[in-house]
């Protein structure tokens, strides 16, 4: 054929290699990964951090650095996949770094073997890194230093435990971590504005349903269901004083009208377009009200007061907030689901929505430019970013990052504004909060016990068979104290039997942790490394919705829970 377009180049080598992930986070997500430099501060058996890195090296992060002063010993070989016999006696950081680098020649790997205690005291030592992962056990003063750094320069910090059959990680994100590209599930994204149609949409519906009753069978069966719904809504309004069906009862009645309007005297015995209309009545005939999470964003102080330094997210959010105040709805996203229709009718409908979306975008963009001038911002915000925001306005997310718990040797934990909800969640049946409390107790034990009189490495509960019982008792009693303090801080008064049951659980979880004696099980660390790496990807690409802010995995019952501490 003469008019075929010129032959395509086909995908590049990189696009081929990364095809299966580019379908998830696209070229922009990939660039964000390639610009990252992840630091792992490794410790203990050291598996969970490396399994995390493995899942980040494969999809092509730019750089990673492993800080680990441990020397490879025989027991590493039974749990760590990135070490071999010939590495015995060498630095674990060096050899794990080299074997990880083999996974992807496009990734740069580095290692640091200086002990973390001295390394971290050097000035600006954390400057190169865009992301920090810290594996437990770690001394509280060092974790506190990392946390202070994360706070000061807004670098994400993850703190990870993997002990026996349990794991946990906490995420310290910047105080405002907005996500525009949340990839909502397709079932939640239809926003057809059937109860707030604009003139062009109504005109379209009227044109497509003119003489509906007299239409030939094939025409009748191809009227797009959106036109059908709008047509029958107009009919309904005539009978109901201009009101649309709002109650469940009214909607059911409206649905019956639609069902009866379908023709059944054709060979198929029904009409697909009418079936589609009937199916969406309950879901789509709702006022297009933004979620409270989105409205909260409009009320955020950063949104209300836009300055020269504001992140572009807040400038656009402010502009969309103005749009919402003016019209009571968000900009039309512009997408139309597939439906039974003739090609031309469908494309025409698609264009009605697209045109409206472009019009709404233009208005938002005007506000953005006005704000930019008013606040003397230098670089204009890319129109593409405004467009993306308008398209997904109903699904944007704002995560309020906050510092994670650092368990100090000499002071008690406080829960602040989260005390009440934590105390409540603690006593839910099947709650995993008791596991989190057992981990906090485990950290407290580490903070208060040394391996020997010289200090240095901490003593791990359950390391030796001889100390099993005393260590269990210590961890358990620390955990009880943490739980009691939480209840007290929350001024909660749990049912006595319920609370006794919670204490039994805390005791069992503590016992299971001590049983491991600090051992990582490869499966649990691989699984936890998988979850952590998913989260790292979500945070770096600023796509999907990250964990806010603590995740617990129970490998005995195969369950996870996410809590906000």
């Amino acid at each position, binding site marked *: 054929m003469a008019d075929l377009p010129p032959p395509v180049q086909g995908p590049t080598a990189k*696009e081929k290699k990364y095809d299966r992930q580019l379908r998830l986070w696209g070229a922009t997500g990939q660039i964000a990964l390639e610009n990252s430099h992840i630091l792992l501060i490794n410790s203990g058996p050291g598996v969970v951090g490396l399994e995390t890195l493995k899942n980040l090296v494969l*999809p092509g992060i730019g750089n990673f650095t492993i800080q680990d002063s441990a020397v490879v010993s025989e*027991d590493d070989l039974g749990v760590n996949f990135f070490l071999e016999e010939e590495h015995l006696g060498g630095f674990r950081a060096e050899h794990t770094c080299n074997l990880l680098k083999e996974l992807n020649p496009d990734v740069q790997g580095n290692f640091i073997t200086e002990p973390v205690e001295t390394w971290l005291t050097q000035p600006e030592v954390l400057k190169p890194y865009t992301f920090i992962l810290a594996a437990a056990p770690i001394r509280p003063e060092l974790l506190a230093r990392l946390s202070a750094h994360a706070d000061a320069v807004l670098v994400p910090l993850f703190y990870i435990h993997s002990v026996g059959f349990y794991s946990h990680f906490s995420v310290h994100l910047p105080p405002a971590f907005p996500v525009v590209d949340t990839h909502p599930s397709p079932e939640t994204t239809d926003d057809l504005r059937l109860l707030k149609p604009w003139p062009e949409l109504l005109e379209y519906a009227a044109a497509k349903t003119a003489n509906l009753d007299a239409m030939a069978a094939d025409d009748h069966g191809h009227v797009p269901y959106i036109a059908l719904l709008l047509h029958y809504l107009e009919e309904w309004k005539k009978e109901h004083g201009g009101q649309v069906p709002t109650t469940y009862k009214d909607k059911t009645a409206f649905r019956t009208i639609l069902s009866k309007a379908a023709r059944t005297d054709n060979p198929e015995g029904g009409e697909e377009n009418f079936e589609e209309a009937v199916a969406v009545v309950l879901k789509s005939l709702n006022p297009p009200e933004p979620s409270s999470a989105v409205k909260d964003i409009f009320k955020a102080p950063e949104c209300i007061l836009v300055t020269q330094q504001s992140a572009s997210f807040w400038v656009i959010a402010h502009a969309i907030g103005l749009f919402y105040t003016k019209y009571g709805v968000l900009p039309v996203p512009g997408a139309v689901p597939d439906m039974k229709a003739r090609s031309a009718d469908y494309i025409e409908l698609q264009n009605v929505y697209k045109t409206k979306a472009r019009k709404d975008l233009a208005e938002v963009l005007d506000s953005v430019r006005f704000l930019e001038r008013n606040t003397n911002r230098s670089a204009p915000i890319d129109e593409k970013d405004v467009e993306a925001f308008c398209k997904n306005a109903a699904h944007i997310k704002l995560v309020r990052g906050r510092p994670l718990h650092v368990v100090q040797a000499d002071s008690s934990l406080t829960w602040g504004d989260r005390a009440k909800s934590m105390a409540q969640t603690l006593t839910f049946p099947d709650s995993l909060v008791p596991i989190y409390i057992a981990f906090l107790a485990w950290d407290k034990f580490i903070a208060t016990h040394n391996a020997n009189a010289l200090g240095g490495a901490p003593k791990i509960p359950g390391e030796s068979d001889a100390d099993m019982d005393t260590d269990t008792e210590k961890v358990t009693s620390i955990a009880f104290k943490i739980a009691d303090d939480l209840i007290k801080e929350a001024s909660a008064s749990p049912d006595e039997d319920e609370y006794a049951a919670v204490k039994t659980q805390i005791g069992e979880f503590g016992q299971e942790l001590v049983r491991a004696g600090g051992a990582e099980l490869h499966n649990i660390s691989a699984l936890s490394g998988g979850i952590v790496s998913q989260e790292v990807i979500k945070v770096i690409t600023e796509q999907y919705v990250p964990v806010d802010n603590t995740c617990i995995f129970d490998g005995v019952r195969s369950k996870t829970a996410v809590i906000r501490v």
Partner: protein
Amino acid sequence: MADAAASSQPTAGSDTNRARWKYLDRILNRPGPFTDPDEFRPGNYASVDRAKILVIGAGGLGCEILKNLALSGFKDIHVIDMDTIDVSNLNRQFLFRAADVGSYKAETAARFVEKRVKGVKITPYCGKIQDKDESYYMQFAMIVCGLDSIEARRWINATLVGMIDENDPDTLKPLIDGGTEGFKGQARVIFPTMTSCIECQLDMHAPRAAVPLCTLATIPRQPQHCIEWAHIIAWEEERKDITLDTDDPEHITWLYQKALQRAQEFNIPGVTYSMTQGVVKNIIPAIASTNAIVAASCCNEAFKLATNANPFLGFPGTDNYMMYTGDESVYTYTFEHQKKDDCPVCGSGAVARPLEVNPSATLQEFVESLAERPEAQLKKPSIRTGTSSLYIQSLADLEQQTRHNLVRKMDDLVEEGEEMVITDKAFPTQFRYKVIWKK
């Protein structure tokens, strides 16, 4: 240097060659608060050492599973996979390098893990699971599946159910199955005939509804419709003599250009090369992290099952299914999927599964619908009733003899409440359904 110091201490009950298993042995030597004292014997290393375990699939999940089992102390692992390595595997199948492209996955993965984890023996088989018979599957203590095909899962499931001899407990082979798509996945444990099986759970993994042929042929609306048209109709019309190879860039380019041209005719935006490839090859997004989660969950269950170090999923009457979702925060739902009495594979046989049938549909339409229906998913069904053969495709002779039925209406061929027995070459079993007229 805590590690070096600790490793010099002897571990209770182990000889020197268990030094590398120090961490694992903490769990194997010590009972925990949730271990069943009747089942768990401290220091029973043989429970994993001697267990022969089969891994089906050496792809995204399989690579992880082999690594995990080797580092859980399993020493005798077999692996089956018929595929060779493709460059698009390298973003997650971490046992393979660019130089391995074109080699067999099972062979390459087995050699890599054997080299890395000393003392483990991995026996690869580069071929189809259907090449092997019951006597082969009988040798294993359990089977871990990391497959991307529902059909292969159903085949091994039906095979394991068929192997059960109620008088011989050794014929019961627990099946641990994992699957992923993007940031989501699931892990499940099946005790054939005792707990809900793959077939009982079939409707949880419904295939995507196919676009009707008339939409593709006459009224396309989406870029995907144009691609499917190029794939199903245009190729057949213009390049019939060439077998379509979806891995051949020239073929994909041809389809892409055809689809693009058709899209332009209908003013449909959005056809791209990458989308063409995705639609034609039915590509499911896949990443290393999700595979890591699901594979490790499967292996955690395998380890607990072998050692009784803690309770496992799948014990009759307890949770047997973990669903994982990672795209919006992290969410898991772990539950007991109930065994279905009318399951065509593991059901008692006393009840046939009800199947809604449109009485005015032709047999041809009914046959085609079986491929898509979530509870059936049979692509080449042969259908019999108690009295006659409605349509048999398994043998050319019989196909000819029964073909005339295809144009007849269903209510002409069967009665409401009548039982149909459906077979499909892809499965070593028969499916029994009871006809219910669609209202």
